[in-house]
């Protein structure tokens, strides 16, 4: 295996792990809020989180550039202050993968949370637990398998992200080239063995992830 293949693999795993962590921190609270709270803008929030699931990844990538690029709404002030921009760095790959994977976690976790018996939550409140502690000690543990299945799916999505990553992080060998991008380049340059090796690795990994997610899902049901 060449250095380039290895670095693509290492980067893909790192990006997927960090994106999954980011998903856990952002996605689980989001799923809880969407499942259990009624507030203004809830439908809009739901729409925003779900959009990356149905939009072409390149469209999501474009929005990310408009938001985070050197001249982006958030990117411009950061660039003006620090001279640094997230575009074309591996952090950008993490951001792209996080946004693309978020709907998978939120939708799965939300369904799991919604199926938790509300009477159990009410019992916890009656026994003096705050909503915060009820969520942490009752609701989320009961929805655990669904949330884990969502995290596994998010990991798989992050591992395979291509379009949005290409738009925001570019395709720089050794720095932002993840496995899907390396496969694209390998096919374009006629490096069939490299393409095949990477395709095989990604296929096996994805199968594993699906099996794990399926088992968790079955236990949750």
């Amino acid at each position, binding site marked *: 295996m060449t250095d380039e293949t290895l670095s693509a693999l290492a980067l893909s795993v790192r990006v997927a792990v960090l994106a999954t962590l980011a998903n856990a921190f952002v996605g689980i609270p989001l799923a809880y809020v969407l499942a259990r709270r009624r507030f203004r803008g809830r439908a809009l929030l739901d729409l925003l989180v779900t959009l990356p699931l149905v939009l072409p990844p390149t469209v999501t990538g474009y929005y990310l550039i408009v938001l985070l*690029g050197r*001249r982006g709404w958030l990117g411009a002030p950061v660039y003006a202050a620090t001279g640094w921009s997230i575009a*074309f760095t591996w952090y950008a790959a993490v951001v792209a993968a996080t946004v693309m994977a978020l709907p998978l976690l939120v939708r799965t976790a939300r369904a799991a949370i919604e199926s938790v018996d509300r009477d159990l939550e009410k019992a916890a409140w009656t026994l003096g637990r705050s909503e915060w502690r009820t969520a942490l000690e009752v609701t989320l543990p009961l929805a655990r398998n669904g949330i884990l299945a969502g995290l596994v799916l998010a990991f798989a999505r992050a591992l395979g992200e291509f379009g949005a990553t290409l738009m925001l992080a*570019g*395709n*720089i*060998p050794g720095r932002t080239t993840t496995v899907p991008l390396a496969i694209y380049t390998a096919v*374009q*340059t006629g490096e069939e063995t490299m393409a095949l090796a990477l395709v095989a690795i990604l296929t096996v990994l994805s199968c594993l992830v699906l099996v794990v997610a399926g088992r968790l899902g079955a236990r949750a049901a």
Partner: protein
Amino acid sequence: MRRVPPSLAIIGVALATLSLTGIPARSAQELTFSVAISMKEATEELGRRFMQSRAGVVLRYNFGSSGELQKQIEAGAPVDLFLSAAPRQMDELEKKGLIVPATRRVFARNVLTIVKPATSTIDIAKPTDLLEPRVTKIVIGNPRTVPVGQYAEESLRALGLWDKLQRKLVFAENVRQALDYVARGEVDAGFVYSTDSAIRRRDVKEALRLPEDTYRPVTYPVAVVKDTRHAALASAFIDLLLSPEGQQVLARLGFLPPPPGAR
């Protein structure tokens, strides 16, 4: 069974109808040209003239980097004519017997230039200015598939800057993507052809031309693809490219005439 809501039914029928329309009937004489994307405007303009004088002939274009187009032809893409931005990709197709060697001609030449965003305040007057810390990102075409990247690498190596600039390089999939990165201000400088910089004159400005003895001449070869079923028409387009009319259009868009004897 639950009834389908009428609004959904209407949308369904509309989508089904739309999916059946708009599929273009394949004309009897439809040709596909695979064109190095830096030749986009020139090919489109000459293509319009070509079709005007030939009723029933339809040209379709497949724009991309020459390396990408080469791989598509190797994979059996149904292409009639290949216009490449470098001899290398044409050589490889010729070696594999995928083009008609007798039809191969060089029809234009170009030069490399370094562009920066129009709003940039960084002074890039000589190649070593690229080393300055204020220049954090430089875009070049991916040297593995994109000729403009291959020329840029050659020039930077000759200038002794290639290794020193590694950390700053960002790769684009074709020259127009490189141009776009500069135009959007995402990078501080980029290597493109002089004809490209003219396309986005409002967003980019030329900073500096590279010494022409540091890279091989940028020549554009064209050849008929072996598997074409329209060899005569494809050859006729090559004739148009080389004719005074074709050369005039190319010159107006900034291309230089082909060097004598180049193939």
